[in-house]
C-alpha cells in the first residue's frame, strides 16, 4: 500500500499544480523559519550584521525586514 506522500510524489513528477504549490509552501515555510531564527539570534545578543552574514543578505535588508517586529515586541 502506498503512503499518502508516495502518492503525492507520483503526482508531483510533472504536474505544475503540485509543483507550484510546493514552491509557494516552501517559501512560506522558509519565511517562518527565518522569523524564528532571527528572533532567537537577537534574543541571544547577535548583531544584525552577524545575522545578515548567515542569511547571505545585507545588514540593511535584515534590519528593514525584522527591525519593526522587534520594536513592536519591546
Amino acid at each position, binding site marked *: 500500500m502506498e503512503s499518502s506522500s508516495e502518492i503525492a510524489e507520483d503526482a508531483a513528477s510533472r504536474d505544475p*499544480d503540485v509543483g507550484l*504549490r510546493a514552491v509557494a509552501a516552501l517559501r512560506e515555510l522558509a*519565511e517562518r523559519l527565518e522569523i524564528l531564527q532571527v528572533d532567537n539570534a537577537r534574543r541571544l545578543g547577535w548583531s544584525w550584521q552577524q545575522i545578515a552574514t548567515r542569511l547571505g543578505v545585507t545588514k540593511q535588508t535584515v534590519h528593514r525586514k525584522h527591525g519593526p517586529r522587534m520594536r513592536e515586541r519591546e
Partner: protein
Amino acid sequence: MTGRIEGEARAAVIRAQAEARRLGQDFIGCEHLLYGLAGADDTVGTALRDNGVTPEGVENQIQRLIADNRAPSAGPGELDRDALAAIGIDLDAVRARLDDAFGPGSLDRPARRPRPAWFARRPGRRAPSGHLPITRQARMCLDRAVTAAAADDPDAAPDTTGLTIALLDIDASALRAVLTGLGVSPPRLAAEIGQLG
C-alpha cells in the same frame, strides 16, 4: 481596419464585449469572441450550437477558468502539507523539531510578509466601463478575418463564417481550454463551418 466588420459578425463582437463585462473581465479575448459567435442568428451560429458550442456552454467554461485562476491551494499564511510532501518535506517532522527547540506552536505563526506597493495597487476590481481593450490574439483574429474577406473582394467585410474560421485557427490558451472543455476539435469544426457557405 476592424471597423469594417458588419452585420451579424459585428453583432457577435458586440456580444463578446458585453459578455466580458458581465463576467467582470477587463478585456475582450478569443473566448469572448467565441461566445459572441455561438449566439449568432445565422447558419454559422446554428452549426456552432449543433456542435456543442452554445453561449451557455462557453460561458460555463469561461467561469470555470476564472474560478481556477482564483483558487489558491492554501490561503496566504497557510502551509500546504501535501505540496511539501510532494517534494519530500515532512511538515510534521519539521514542526516536531521546531516545537522541541522553540516551544509548541512555533511554526504556526504566519509570516505576515509586507506586500510590495505594486501588489496592493493592482486595479483589478475596478468596474470596467467604455470600450474594453482587446487581447493581441483576438485582434489578430479580427485582422485575419478582414484580410481573408478582402482577398476575394476588396470591398467585402468578413462575415461570421470568416470570423469563426479565423478564430478556430488562433492559438490562444483560454480559447483552447474552452473548446477542449466543450469536447470540440477546432480543425474539424472549422472544416464544417467552411462548407456552409
